[in-house]
C-alpha cells in the first residue's frame, strides 16, 4: 500500500515545474524561430568545425543559385552588341562607366512588345485566382476540422484525393463547360480553373493547420457564446495566419508562373495575354535577341521575387506547420 498515495506532496514532486502552456500558439512559434537560430549559431565549442562546414556550404549553394540571376539582371541593362560579344561579368570591369548601361531593352520589351499590358493581365489573373481559392478553402478547412457532419472524413479524403488528378485531364471538360456558360477566353474562366486546381492542396494544408489548434480554445469560444461563423472569423482565421499566408504565397507564385492554364483558357490575344505567354512568344519571334529576352525574363521574375523575399518567413513556417505538425 505504500505506493498508493495520491497525495498532493507526491504529485507536486513529480512535476516541480509543471508550467506548461498548451494553449499558446504564438509562444510555440517564437520557440521554433529561436530553435532554428540556435541550430545554426549555437555550434560553439565542440561542434564549431562542423558549423563552419555548414556555413560555407550554405554560402556556396546561395552563390550557385544567385549568380545566374545576377547575370540575367546585368545583361538586361547592356547594349545589344555588348551582350552578343562579351560575357555579362565583363561589365564589372568598369561598373561606373555608365555609357555601357541602357534602359532601352526594357523600353522595347515593355512598350513595343507590350509586356506592360501582359504584366497588368498577369496581376488581374493572379490576384483573384489566389484570393478566391484561399477564402473558399478556409471555410472548407474549418468545416472539415471543427464541424461535425455525416461523412466528414470520407468527403475530406475524396477532396484530398483530387490532388492526384492531373491538370491536363480537366482541360477538355473545363473548356466545354466554359463554352456552355459563354465565358471561355475570359479572366473569369481562368480564375475558376485556378480555383479548382488549387483547392485540394489549400484545403489539405489549412485543415491540417486548423485541426492542430487546441480543442479547448475552440470549445471555450463556444461556451463564450460564439456561433460557428464567429468562431471561424474571430478565432480560427487570426490563429491560422501563418498557414493562410503560406498558402497565399504558394498559390500566388504558382498562378503567376503558370503557362499552361493561361495559354489554354486565355490564349494569346493581347488583351488577355499574361507575362509567361508573352515571354514564350518573344522567344519564338526574337529568339536571337538576348538583350530583350533577359529584360522580359526579369520583368516576369520580379513579382515572384518580391513576394517571396518579403514573405518567406511565413512561407517556411506555415508550410511546415501545416504538413509536419498535422
Amino acid at each position: 500500500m505504500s505506493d498508493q498515495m495520491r497525495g498532493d506532496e507526491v504529485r507536486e514532486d513529480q512535476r516541480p515545474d509543471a508550467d506548461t502552456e498548451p494553449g499558446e500558439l504564438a509562444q510555440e512559434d517564437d520557440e521554433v524561430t529561436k530553435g532554428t537560430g540556435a541550430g545554426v549559431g549555437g555550434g560553439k565549442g565542440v561542434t564549431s568545425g562542423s558549423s563552419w562546414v555548414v556555413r560555407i556550404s550554405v554560402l556556396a549553394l546561395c552563390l550557385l543559385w544567385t549568380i545566374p540571376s545576377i547575370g540575367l539582371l546585368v545583361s538586361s541593362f547592356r547594349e545589344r552588341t555588348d551582350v552578343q560579344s562579351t560575357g555579362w561579368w565583363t561589365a564589372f570591369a568598369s561598373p561606373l562607366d555608365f555609357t555601357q548601361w541602357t534602359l532601352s531593352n526594357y523600353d522595347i520589351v515593355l512598350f513595343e512588345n507590350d509586356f506592360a499590358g501582359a504584366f497588368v493581365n498577369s496581376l488581374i489573373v493572379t490576384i483573384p485566382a489566389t484570393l478566391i481559392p484561399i477564402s473558399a478553402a478556409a471555410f472548407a478547412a474549418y468545416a472539415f476540422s471543427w464541424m461535425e457532419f455525416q461523412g466528414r472524413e470520407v468527403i475530406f479524403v475524396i477532396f484530398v484525393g483530387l490532388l492526384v488528378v492531373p491538370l491536363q485531364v480537366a482541360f477538355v471538360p473545363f473548356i466545354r463547360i466554359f463554352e456552355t456558360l459563354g465565358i471561355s477566353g475570359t479572366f473569369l474562366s481562368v480564375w475558376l480553373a485556378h480555383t479548382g486546381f488549387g483547392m485540394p492542396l489549400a484545403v489539405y494544408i489549412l485543415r491540417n493547420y486548423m485541426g492542430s489548434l487546441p480543442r479547448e480554445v475552440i470549445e471555450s469560444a463556444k461556451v463564450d457564446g460564439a456561433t460557428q461563423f464567429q468562431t471561424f472569423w474571430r478565432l480560427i482565421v487570426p490563429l491560422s495566419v501563418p498557414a493562410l499566408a503560406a498558402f497565399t504565397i504558394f498559390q500566388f507564385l504558382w498562378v503567376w508562373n503558370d503557362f499552361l492554364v493561361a495559354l489554354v483558357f486565355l490564349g494569346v490575344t493581347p488583351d488577355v495575354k499574361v507575362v509567361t505567354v508573352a515571354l514564350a512568344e518573344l522567344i519564338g519571334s526574337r529568339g536571337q535577341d538576348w538583350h530583350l529576352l533577359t529584360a522580359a525574363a526579369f520583368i516576369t521574375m520580379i513579382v515572384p521575387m518580391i513576394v517571396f523575399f518579403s514573405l518567406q518567413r511565413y512561407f517556411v513556417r506555415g508550410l511546415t506547420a501545416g504538413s509536419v505538425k498535422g
Partner: protein
Amino acid sequence: MAKVVYDSVYKRFPDGTEAIKDLSLEIGDGEFVILVGPSGCGKSTALRMCAGLEEISDGQLLIGDKVVNNLTPKERDIAMVFQSYALYPHMTVGENMGFALKLAKVDSDEIDKRVKDAAETLDLTEYVDRKPKALSGGQRQRVAMGRAIVREPQAFLMDEPLSNLDAKLRVAMRAQIAELQNRLGVTTIYVTHDQVEAMTMGDRVAVLKRGELMQVDAPQKLYDNPDNLFVGGFIGSPAMNFAEAEFYKEEGQYKVSVGEGDNPTILNVHDEAIDRYHRVTDYEGKTLAIGMRPEHFFRGNGESTDAPQGMMWTGRRVTLVEQLGAEMLVHFGTSAPPIVTEDMREAVDDPDAFAELERQAREGGQVFTARFDPGDPPKFDSLIDVGFRTEYLHFFDIESGEALR
C-alpha cells in the same frame, strides 16, 4: 444564478461504452460541488455535458428550471474554466475577458466596466493590455477565472483548473477560488483528481467510479463515513489501509482476526465501531474487509500486546519512513491479506501500484501506512509495535464493497 440538476443522465458513446450511468445529482443554487474520481471515471464528461460540449444520451439536465439537453452552450449561459486555460492567444487579457460580452452585444462601456472590475478582483489590472504569452502560469489561470466571472453566468464549470500550476501557486489559487466562489455565490461544479482540492474547496464532494456516482456528501462526512470500499480507498491521502479479516464473537466480545496461518493478529472491536456499522453483526463467522485510516494507528511500546480495545502488530519491519514536518508516515510490513478487487483497482487509480498490491497479495501480506506525530522516527528496517484504535474501524463487504451500515 441557478441550481443545476442531473436527472438520470446517461452518456453513451457510439462504440457502446457508457461514460456516465444514471447520474442523478442536484447542485443547489450557489453551491460549490466537487466532482472527483479516478482517471476515466467520467467526471470531465459529466461537466462537459453540463456545458453543452457533449451530447446527453439519456435523462435530463436542468439549469434553473429549464431542461437544457438540446440547448447550445451559448443558450445555457454558463462559464467554463479549462485545464489549459484556453485563452485566446491573439487577444489581450482585456479582450479575452470581454470576448463573451462582446459576442453577447453588451455595450462597450459596460464591457469595459466589468472587465475592469474583474481585473481588479483578480489583481490583473496592470496586465489588461498584455497578450497571454507574456503572462506567467498563475496569471493566465487568473485570466481564465476573469473570463468566467465577467459573464455573471448561471453557473461556473471548472475542469481541473489548477492542475497546470506549480505546488505553491496551487495552494494559493485554491484558497482564492474558494473565497471568490463564496463571495460571488455562483453555483459551481469543479472537477479535480486532487485529494486536497476535493477535501478543502467544496460544500459537497461527489465521488464517481466508472461513470457511476458512488457517494455525495460534505467532505468530512465522506471521509469519516464512506459508503463503500471504493470511496474509503479513494478519499484520503495516504489512503485507508484495507485487509481481509474474520469476524467473530468470543465471550461476548466481537473480534476480528487478521492474517493467515497459525498466528493471526486478533483485535477486540470497540463497541462504537459496532454501533456505526450495525450490519456487521450479520457477518459473524464470516470474512469481511476492514478499513483502517493511517492516523488511527498508534505506536506501541512492546509490552501492551493484549490491550483490551486495541490490535497490536508486534515486531513489524519498517519499510519506509516519511517525515513531513508536521507528521510522520511509517510504512510497515504485515501478514494481513490485502483486498484485491475491482473496487480496489479503481481506488488505487494507478496500474503500477495495483500490480504491486497484487504481488503482495500473492506473497500473503501487505504494507500498511501509519501516520504518527513527528519525533523519534523508527529506523529503516528496524522492528516496531503498532496498535490500532478499533473505535475507528470500518467494515465492508468484500464482494459488493458496500459499507456494513
